[in-house]
């Protein structure tokens, strides 16, 4: 019986013949490892790019968003648990090979393809092959990932990517172990590798009541981002809704999200947003130099845009992002 060791993510699953990795979607067949979800998305949607969330990439455009079943983390409060914590036999899957993804994205008028919802790490080969074709077709490739990936596969994927949103769920190994059965450092390494590769990065932190909503949790995240990733990296504090194994908790209070935003901005982060909620100022982009309202958003809808060639129309400060 020939085992295989998967090297895609830090779990390094050792998989016996007939078995699968922890992610549920990579299987050992006759001593070779196969993806069970290549070309088989269970979620396909055309979404506003702001929903991904990307607030500094092609505002008001739409993104052709795909995901397969499975995930290599097991977050107790996963907001997409109905697909991430399922094997592909239990999801309703389409037959959509990479070339069809690109064709449908172009037909829908999308300017990007987003590999999202569950985690593109576990449908790596599908993400990779699709992103090669998408780039050739003039589409942007957007990754939304929990960042739990080994260095080598990430390095291979980076040349195809334009932007990535990485979930930094907490700032301790203990949190990652209890919440997600994972560890922290690979996620931080992922953020730094993406930055080094010149990919536009935004960060999302799902604020879960009683788990990671203390001032010190928010401060630790903000300080790390400012110190190692950069004060101009947008951070989205996202509202948790009771799901999966955390239905005993309430949704994140709006005050908590407002407090998180205030703390992060006090730590020097320039672009801090509140997500999964319509929150007025927390959805807007302001010039870090003169405070001018640059982009007003009502939820995912852009209602005002005062950027001119990616700069504040009043003072001319360049605002980082991919604006066209």
């Amino acid at each position, binding site marked *: 019986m*020939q085992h295989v060791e998967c090297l895609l993510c830090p779990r390094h699953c050792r998989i016996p013949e007939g078995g699968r990795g922890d992610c549920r979607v990579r299987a050992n067949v006759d001593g070779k490892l196969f993806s069970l979800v290549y070309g088989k998305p269970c979620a396909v949607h055309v979404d506003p790019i702001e929903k991904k969330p990307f607030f500094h990439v092609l505002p008001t455009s739409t993104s052709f968003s795909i995901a397969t079943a499975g995930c290599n983390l097991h977050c107790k409060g996963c907001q997409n648990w109905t697909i991430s914590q399922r094997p592909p036999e239990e999801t309703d899957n389409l037959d959509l090979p990479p070339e069809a993804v690109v064709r449908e994205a172009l037909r829908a008028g999308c300017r990007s393809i987003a590999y999202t919802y569950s985690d593109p790490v576990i449908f790596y080969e599908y993400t990779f092959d699709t992103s090669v074709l998408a780039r050739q077709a003039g589409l942007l490739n957007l990754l939304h990932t929990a960042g739990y990936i080994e260095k080598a596969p990430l390095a291979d994927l980076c040349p195809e990517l334009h932007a990535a949103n990485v979930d930094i769920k907490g700032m301790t190994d203990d949190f990652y172990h209890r919440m997600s059965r994972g560890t922290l450092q690979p996620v931080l390494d992922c953020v730094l590798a993406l930055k080094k590769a010149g990919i536009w990065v935004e960060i999302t932190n799902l604020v879960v009541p009683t788990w990671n909503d203390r001032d010190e949790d928010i401060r630790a995240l903000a300080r790390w981002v400012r110190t190692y990733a950069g004060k101009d990296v947008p951070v989205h504090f996202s509202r948790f809704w009771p799901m999966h194994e955390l239905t005993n908790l309430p949704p994140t209070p709006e005050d908590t999200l407002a407090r998180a935003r205030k703390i992060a901005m006090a730590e020097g982060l320039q672009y801090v947003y509140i997500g999964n909620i319509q929150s007025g100022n927390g959805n807007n982009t302001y010039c870090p130099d003169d405070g001018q309202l640059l982009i007003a958003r009502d939820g995912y809808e852009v209602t005002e845009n005062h950027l001119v060639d990616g700069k504040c129309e009043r003072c001319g400060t360049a605002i980082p992002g991919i604006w066209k």
Partner: protein
Amino acid sequence: METKLDELQTRPAGENAGLDRRDFLKLCAVATSGLFLNKVSGWLNLLAGQKPPLKEARFYRRADHLAG
């Protein structure tokens, strides 16, 4: 052309709007039928015992069954 114009003039008010609604519904039907046919072809393949080929993963290696 004259006949066509006569036909249009004899139609009750709102008929053209109804034609536009029918055309819209046809377009919706074409769009959804593509997805439906995709599912049907998948079912037919299953019935025929055909499994689509699996994609070999990247980034793995053969391993001994003993850990450590």
